[in-house]
């Protein structure tokens, strides 16, 4: 672990030699060689190599597949943009619209649900925070479809909630399952931790002293929220929104299990293009569109954030 001092001496060596031999050929290669020998690239190397093979490679392949003729299965048949033309002219915009709409509604619901929760965890019930965190984390590790199936049992006709409502209140609420609100419920349910924990991280970046000072200076509860807490917690909240929006955008199980077939979301279209319809190029093109839209959003938000500051609380 003496790597960092080695790297420092290497860097200074590099600087010296860089001044002396800037004009020489091979300088770039030497710099690359020295860069690779730093602890950062050395330690992160295996991980990057893995992700190049397991993430970048497959995505490039999907991009290539999106440009071959429809319903073909190899890359030797020439290139075409036919799949994209098909997508635009057919009614796929409906599934895109549903996905974006449902994702937006999910994010709004999660903001309302999670903010008081995150606030309570960081600023009010500090002592119980670790137990609360544990209780909130456990569901995350239970397979998503098992939990959604639990909602099916809860909402289905004769299930827990309609059964209880009928038994104790005498009202009939048997039509809950297989509706759009049921899908939103599932999305909010599954992605709750992904909003909550970034938010907790963000709110814990608000120093208590600053809040006290604001109150001493006569700030109202609303002013405290708007002028102090919200701006300082914003990076965490933004990450939470981004994370849940993207995850909801690409979700598959919620609309399938809780929505029956009332709504087709985009991941559903992609899956059926790959499996049922055996039209890989179209599935690939739909994936590329989803990736581009999601990727643009991710980069737009991430480029505004300083990860060191959020994670290291520095």
């Amino acid at each position: 672990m003496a790597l960092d001092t080695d790297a420092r001496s290497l860097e200074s060596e590099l600087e010296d030699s860089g001044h002396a031999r800037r004009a020489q050929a091979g300088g770039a290669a030497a710099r690359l060689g020295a860069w690779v020998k730093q602890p950062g690239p050395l330690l992160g190397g295996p991980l990057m190599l893995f992700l190049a093979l397991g993430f970048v490679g497959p995505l490039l392949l999907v991009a290539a597949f999106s440009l071959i003729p429809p319903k073909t299965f190899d890359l030797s048949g020439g290139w075409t943009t036919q799949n994209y033309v098909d997508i635009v002219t057919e009614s796929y915009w409906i599934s895109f619209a549903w996905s974006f709409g449902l994702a937006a509604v999910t994010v709004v619901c999660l903001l309302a649900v999670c903010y008081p929760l995150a606030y309570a965890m960081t600023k009010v019930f500090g002592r119980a925070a670790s137990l609360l965190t544990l209780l909130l984390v456990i569901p995350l590790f239970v397979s998503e479809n098992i939990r959604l199936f639990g909602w099916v049992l809860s909402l289905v006709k004769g299930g827990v909630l309609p059964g209880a409502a009928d038994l104790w209140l005498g009202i009939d609420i048997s039509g809950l399952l297989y509706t759009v609100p049921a899908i939103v419920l599932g999305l909010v349910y599954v992605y709750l931790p992904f909003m909550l924990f970034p938010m907790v991280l963000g709110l814990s970046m608000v120093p208590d002293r600053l809040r006290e000072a604001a109150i001493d200076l006569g700030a109202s509860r609303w002013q405290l929220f708007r002028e102090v807490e919200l701006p300082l917690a914003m990076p965490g909240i933004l990450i939470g929104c981004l994370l849940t929006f993207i995850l909801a955008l690409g979700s598959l199980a919620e609309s399938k299990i809780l929505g029956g077939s009332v709504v087709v979301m985009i991941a559903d279209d992609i899956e059926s293009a790959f499996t049922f319809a055996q039209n890989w190029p179209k599935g690939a093109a739909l994936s590329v569109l989803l990736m581009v839209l999601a990727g643009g959003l991710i980069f737009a938000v991430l480029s505004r954030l300083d990860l060191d500051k959020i994670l290291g609380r520095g």
Partner: protein
Amino acid sequence: MSAMSTSRPMKWLLAVWIGTVLVFLYLPMAAIALASFSRQRYFRFPIPRFDTRWYEDAFTSLSVRDLLWTSLTVAAIVTVISVVLAFLGALAFARYDWKGRSVYQKLLLLPIFFPQAVLGLALLLWYSALGIPTSWMTAVFAHLVWILPIATLVISIQVYGFNPAWEEAARDLGASRWQVFREVTLPILWPGIFSGALFSFLLSWGNFPLSLFTTGADSTIPEWLYSKMVSGYTPLVPTLGTLTVVGAALLLLGAYTVIMLVRRSRQARATAEG
């Protein structure tokens, strides 16, 4: 101290809200547990008769044993590989300053944000193009693509709190590199590595969208449950579902206890020495 700006009714409201959210989170699991104890083949609430025969079926079934074995093998291998790579990756993420680090940090986060179902399909395409037959081993690889970045992030949070001066001090006192690593770096980063391992295991254990497309003829528990939910419901679905929930909860509670015990014994040692 920090509670000073919160009034009493506000506190009550927040407590009620926490309770509501917890009920919301655990209601579906309670429903599954209820269904698993119902004697009926099809679930109705209130439950007319309770029975544990589905558990007997689950414990004696050979196919359940196969599923369990596949899920465990995948999760265990994922955990081992992920801890090693993510530990190194986290040092590069948070410990060292180097050119290109901020790009590295952001690229590493991309797979986490990526829709898993689409990632699973992309990997299926990738395997078929490379001529690799899909089995539980390709599922291990697929899980790692998604879990490695998460484990790296989890360990990084611990690494951010690490002071490099401690390593330097140990080296100045004559420790070898290996000694510094074993006696200083590892013990301090241990809680992060531990939670990284826990996350890796549990996320692989519960993963469905990636497994769905990458296990080939093999099947993990979440996959099997899904196929039975969609067609051919059997009461083994809630039974096996309950067992996986209980398993995950026990593992987490066990880990939580271990962390608490270690922390307490460290504190005791520190006060005894100080």
